[in-house]
């Protein structure tokens, strides 16, 4: 019912259809016999003639052996297809992308050093392998169209691979419960054809896109990376302090010492949030963005924050 965007997905669909056929057959068989017996042997009167059948050994053996065989067939077919779904092809080159899942946003790190948030950009027709790790709780990286899913665990790297056949855009879901905005931890996979990919790798822009101004880029990052989820721009108190009139504001840390908000305080809090917690706000709620945001991106965010004023 949903499109399959990799050849392995097509083979997984074949397994699913095979099992669905098995399920439909046995479901109809069992319940047809059940309904037939219910109608055929309805009680007519109190002294119906009833067969004193207690069991039938050959029948028992038959309906033990047949399910065993069918079940082993399903198992074997499933494992054969799963082998290709799970282990990337050995001989072909594999393009590795680092994925970090954190509370309610994904971030991707490419071999050429570029990082994107919630948007996985991959070339068409290449074997992509995602090396995934979480920086707080367990998440799960799921792309329905590719039929791939793997948990993202803080204590070890996990991986999954796919080879998208043609260009397109697909959803990324988080399928392991991870807290408040588990249902908003969505992302997009954008599969680019060859030349678009070429351009993107060099300039980080799609064909025909021109570079965003630092302010626009900062605003886009502020939304993409989930900052908006905990830091409001309209003054409302969320999990973290509001960004309204934040720049130049002076307040006290939980440790009691006063501070005024300036460039390197914001930069430091983005990279190591738990160093200086503002009084009255919960500790270790904000994940560290160290390594997921390049310094230029952080400076764009700072320029954006400077513009949030309530004049």
């Amino acid at each position: 019912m949903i499109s399959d965007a990799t050849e392995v997905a097509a083979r997984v669909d074949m397994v699913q259809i095979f099992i669905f056929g098995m399920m439909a057959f046995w479901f109809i068989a069992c319940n047809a016999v059940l309904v037939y017996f219910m109608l055929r042997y309805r009680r007519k009167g109190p002294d119906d003639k009833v067969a004193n059948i207690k069991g039938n050994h050959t029948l028992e053996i038959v309906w033990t052996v047949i399910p065993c065989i069918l079940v082993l067939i399903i198992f074997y077919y499933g494992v054969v297809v799963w082998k290709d779904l799970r282990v990337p092809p050995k001989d072909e080159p594999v393009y590795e992308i680092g994925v970090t899942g954190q509370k309610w946003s994904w971030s991707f790190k490419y071999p050429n050093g570029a990082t994107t948030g919630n948007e996985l950009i991959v070339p068409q027709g290449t074997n992509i392998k995602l090396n995934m790790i979480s920086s707080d709780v367990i998440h799960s990286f799921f792309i329905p169209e590719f039929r791939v899913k793997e948990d993202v665990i803080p204590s070890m790297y996990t991986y999954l691979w796919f080879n998208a056949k043609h260009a397109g855009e697909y959803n990324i879901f988080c399928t392991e419960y991870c807290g408040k905005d588990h249902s908003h931890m969505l992302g997009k996979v954008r599969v680019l054809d060859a030349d678009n990919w070429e351009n993107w790798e060099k300039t980080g822009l799609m064909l025909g896109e021109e570079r965003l101004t630092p302010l626009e880029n900062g605003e886009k990052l502020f939304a993409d990376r989930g900052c908006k989820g905990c830091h409001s721009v309209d003054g409302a108190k969320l999990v973290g302090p509001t960004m309204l009139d934040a720049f130049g504001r002076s307040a006290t840390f939980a440790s009691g010492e006063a501070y005024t908000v300036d460039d390197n305080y914001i930069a430091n809090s983005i990279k190591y949030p738990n160093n200086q917690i503002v009084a009255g706000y919960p500790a270790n709620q904000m994940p560290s963005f160290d390594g997921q945001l390049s310094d230029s991106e952080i400076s764009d965010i700072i320029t954006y924050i400077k513009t949030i004023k309530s004049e």
Partner: protein
Amino acid sequence: MAHDHHDDHAGEMGHIQPFKVYLGTFLALVVLTVVTVAASRINWGNAFLNDVVAMVIATIKATLVITLFMHGKHEKLETWGFIWAPIILLATLLAALFVDYAGRQNDLYIEPAPISKLYVHQPESITKKAHGEGHGDDHGKSGDTHAPATDGHGAEGDDHGATDAGHGDSHGETDAGHGDSHDAEGDAKATDDQGDAAKKDDGDHGDH
């Protein structure tokens, strides 16, 4: 009237064993304790075999206690069912966990996160180890620069700076995939290179 039981009538309550049986068991147990301490001094090959030896001696002691002290010998079959059941289930749990964890190491590409990636307060013994003598290339785990240590908070900032600087150039030919050939020293597994540690300068990957 107490209705008689369908299975055999338990004569008098419990089987009486002579005193020397108890004494013999006790002495055997003490001797085995000494043996197990002695056995732990000798290195039987690798860590796994040392565990196996310790477990075998402990199992012998346990069977002695069950059969003789707890009168296991005179128990019916169903009671022995309830003795074997937990042992089998525990063995299943441990075997499954072992197959899982051992299997992960040599699965293509799966390997444990470097200590530097574990962000929260670090036990001193890990950090002491990572600080002190970052030795050899066993596991590659302990060879990392330590992550934000429990002690200093402030130290974090500059420490990362150091690894970042060192990150670019000295990144060896480690192939994170197979998890065996980490080069141990220094910042082979810096904090932020989760994904591309494997193929950073591996020319041929990707056709772009």
